[in-house]
């Protein structure tokens, strides 16, 4: 049987608004499979996003869904999780949303190690507003606000997340479709802040401007640049030039925030 995505999607919400070939649809499918794998209960799960094309994802999902303001997903989600630690909280959104305007909430959620799973759909561009560069747009590339090539260096989102204290950090691409659900599922099961970066493609606002003939070309590039961590371990720096590591990049067990707070309450109320 074909995979039953529909049972996780709100009736009547498809087709979604994303452009032909937009990678966000592929990530959404991976997320659905991951949530399925984890057996999440609809009523007991919240999906929270910011603003952007990627952030439109929750609207399609038949869960408690919250489409917040640009960049604020992690902070809204923190409020939900504090009040209802028993709920599974998933954040999702774009690279711009999560690392530009939302950078501060993102790093602080990592620091607290609050139990949520943050899926960043990194298409290295502000898709929704028509293709301005994001903190993840590779240096030198074209965007509507870098007509002469992007002068900015990029964030390595995973490095940033690890530096900020996230306890589960993984990366894959929209080409590696089956890895998406595996990593997200692992992130959901991990107790603490999990960050899963999925490199995907925005043919409309990035591809055209950067001379990709089609989204398939863009996906093939993702295939080429991805190197699984295990394989990378055996490669030279030269071989790794221009490559992106995929798989679980970091994992650590550390006290989770709402757990700690529950203990604090117990202590105060016990006293």
């Amino acid at each position, binding site marked *: 049987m074909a995979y039953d995505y529909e049972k996780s999607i709100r009736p009547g919400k*498809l087709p*979604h608004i*994303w452009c032909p070939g937009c*990678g966000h*649809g592929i990530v959404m499918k991976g997320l659905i499979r991951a949530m399925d794998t984890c057996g999440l209960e609809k009523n007991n799960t919240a999906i929270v996003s910011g603003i952007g094309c990627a952030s439109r994802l929750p609207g399609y999902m038949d869960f408690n869904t919250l489409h917040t303001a640009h960049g604020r997903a992690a902070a809204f989600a923190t409020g939900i999780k504090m009040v209802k630690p028993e709920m599974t909280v998933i954040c999702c959104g774009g690279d711009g949303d999560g690392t530009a305007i939302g950078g501060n909430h993102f790093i602080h959620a990592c620091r607290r190690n609050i139990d949520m799973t943050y899926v960043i759909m990194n298409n290295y561009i502000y898709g929704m507003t028509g293709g301005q560069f994001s903190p993840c747009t590779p240096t030198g590339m074209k965007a509507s606000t870098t007509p002469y090539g992007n002068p900015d260096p990029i964030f390595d989102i995973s490095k940033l997340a690890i530096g900020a204290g996230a306890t589960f950090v993984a990366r894959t691409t929209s080409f590696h479709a089956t890895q998406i659900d595996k990593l997200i599922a692992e992130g959901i099961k991990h107790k603490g802040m999990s960050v899963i970066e999925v490199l995907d493609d925005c043919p409309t606002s990035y591809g055209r401007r950067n001379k990709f003939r089609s989204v*398939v070309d863009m996906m093939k590039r993702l295939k080429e640049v991805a190197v699984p961590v295990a394989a990378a371990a055996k490669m030279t720096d030269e071989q790794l030039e221009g490559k992106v590591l995929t798989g679980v990049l970091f994992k650590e067990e550390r006290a989770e925030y709402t757990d700690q707070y529950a203990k604090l309450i117990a202590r105060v109320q016990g006293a």
Partner: protein
Amino acid sequence: MSAKAEIEIIEEYCKGCSICVEFCPTKVLEMDAFVVKVANADACIACNQCELRCPDFAIKVHKL
């Protein structure tokens, strides 16, 4: 050669990105103007690549 799966295409969802066409290992699919169509049903090996990769929930692989 006989089809290993029946391919269902939900035309209202398909946006014609041609990802499924490109990643189908046996060239079962083809673009028809803006929408994909099954051009070579018998060649399907039920590998599920098309369903897995379609960003638009527009294709379903029903194994036979």
